[in-house]
């Protein structure tokens, strides 16, 4: 018997383990619940410290099938102190959780897909699938190839070309849908009713979503088994922020960290901000929106976990912000120029919202704050189109370069002794 099973988040009905995302009784989402006492002896700081540096070091708190052998070292991305960006934002206790370098496909989605595919195999699916705004598509395609699944990927037709190419290259079948992500997602719900496929974010969703907890486990372990005061998390479907909270709660339950209140802050693009709008207007429910933002990986107008994200944020005493497209582009550049991290549009949203939260005094500068950077800038370079001019070529001669230097340095250089 597994030490975990699906339970309805609202009525509590237990569903065992099966490819299913909702409770038939009340339509509410299912969530993986664990027998914590069964893992208490194995899940200790000391035992975890002896394991390889990847997300599988937290296996006891992931819904993995018995005898599961991971095929990829996913996760355990750097938690970087960010003094330069911190200076810009007015704090000296800023950290970046850098999933822009998560393996194998450079986004935090590698974590969720790794867990989902373990269950896809256990449930006997030969085809895996997803609706995606891009990063998930890349990850499902890559990990399906690695693990010998066929992959069918459904995306909104207007996705960034790099994200489409980064899916096709793995041999996945990419179906472009003339519609928004929300329409793609609804279609996938219908397809999952008809075809026996493992849709990672539909019928495998409860398992898939648990993979996000590893972001929270890693933050705590990398801070020396302490919880931060604040976490700033980008929100699309709203699942990640709730799972980081679940991870922190579980570490407290199992005694790996001292109990402590953590404030959760959500970040969205103003052109698609159903969760942050609900929080700012004091509503507990989502009013769906039609997305209009270049932050396509966050462009979900009807977020599946929006209700729970609102709850997690407001209960923690946190807040949610949103930024315009020019602000998020500016923030991509800020993060790159201050810390040498090139993030995608969603990361620009996170940094931009953090800047606002500090300015508004919602995050105190003397508190430890972690910004979750969830994706890589190489996938959304078109967001920076027009930001940099192409340099005119010069001849390969020293004299040419000296002349070039004279012409370029219009700002007088101060030479420090």
């Amino acid at each position, binding site marked *: 018997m597994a030490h975990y099973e699906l339970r309805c988040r609202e009525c509590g009905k237990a569903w065992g383990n099966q490819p299913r995302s*909702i409770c038939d*009784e009340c*339509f*509410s*989402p299912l969530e993986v619940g664990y027998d914590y006492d069964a893992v208490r002896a194995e899940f200790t700081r000391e035992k975890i410290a002896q394991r390889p540096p990847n997300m599988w070091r937290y296996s006891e708190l992931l819904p993995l099938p018995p005898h599961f052998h991971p095929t990829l070292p996913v996760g355990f991305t750097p938690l970087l102190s960010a003094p330069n960006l911190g200076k810009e934002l007015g704090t000296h206790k800023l950290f970046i959780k850098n999933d822009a370098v998560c393996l194998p496909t450079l986004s935090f989605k590698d974590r969720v897909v790794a867990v989902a595919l373990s269950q896809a195999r256990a449930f006997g699916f030969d085809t895996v699938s997803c609706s995606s705004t891009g990063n998930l598509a890349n990850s499902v395609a890559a990990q399906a190839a690695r693990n010998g699944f066929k992959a069918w990927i459904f995306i909104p037709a207007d996705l960034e070309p790099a994200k489409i190419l980064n899916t096709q290259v793995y041999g996945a079948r990419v179906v472009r849908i003339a519609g928004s992500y929300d329409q793609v997602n*609804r279609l996938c719900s219908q397809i999952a*009713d008809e075809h026996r496929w493992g*849709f990672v974010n539909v*019928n495998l969703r409860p398992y898939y979503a648990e993979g996000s907890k590893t972001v929270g486990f890693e933050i705590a372990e990398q801070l020396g088994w302490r919880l931060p005061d604040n976490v700033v998390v980008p929100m699309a479907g709203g699942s990640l922020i709730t799972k980081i909270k679940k991870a922190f709660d579980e570490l407290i339950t199992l005694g790996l960290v001292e109990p402590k209140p953590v404030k959760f802050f959500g970040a969205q693009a103003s052109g698609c901000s159903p969760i942050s709008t609900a929080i700012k207007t004091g509503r507990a429910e989502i009013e769906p929106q039609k997305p209009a933002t270049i932050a396509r990986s966050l462009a979900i107008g009807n977020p599946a976990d929006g209700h729970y994200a609102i709850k997690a944020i407001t209960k923690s005493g946190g807040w949610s912000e949103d930024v315009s497209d020019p602000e998020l582009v500016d923030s991509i550049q800020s993060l790159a120029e201050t810390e040498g991290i090139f993030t995608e549009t969603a990361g620009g949203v996170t940094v931009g919202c953090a800047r606002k939260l500090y300015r508004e005094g919602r995050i105190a500068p003397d508190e430890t704050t972690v910004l979750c950077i969830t994706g890589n800038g190489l996938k959304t370079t078109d967001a920076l189109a027009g930001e940099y001019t192409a340099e005119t070529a010069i001849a390969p001669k020293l004299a040419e370069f000296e002349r070039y230097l004279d012409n370029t340095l219009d700002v007088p250089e101060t030479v420090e002794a």
Partner: protein
Amino acid sequence: MSITVQIPTALRRHTDGVGKLDCSANNLGELFSVLDQKFPQLKPHLRDEAGQIRRFLNVYVNEEDIRFLGGPGYTFQDGDEILLVPSIAGGRE
């Protein structure tokens, strides 16, 4: 005046397996009444105790979320296709 409603797999055990129904409801309230009458077991799955549409049940009219059409009060047009879709539904074992 005739509309079609598609019932998702998750609900078909309350409809004797019926997945599609034609009726002449003018709006969502009337449609739910028709369904209540035809499939009494379905009733508690569509609305909560307070009579509100269940939080995790989405209603689409011709592929458009009914909330973008003015909400549950929207007046159906002849030939409209109504989809009831749990928000993260799907799955065939």
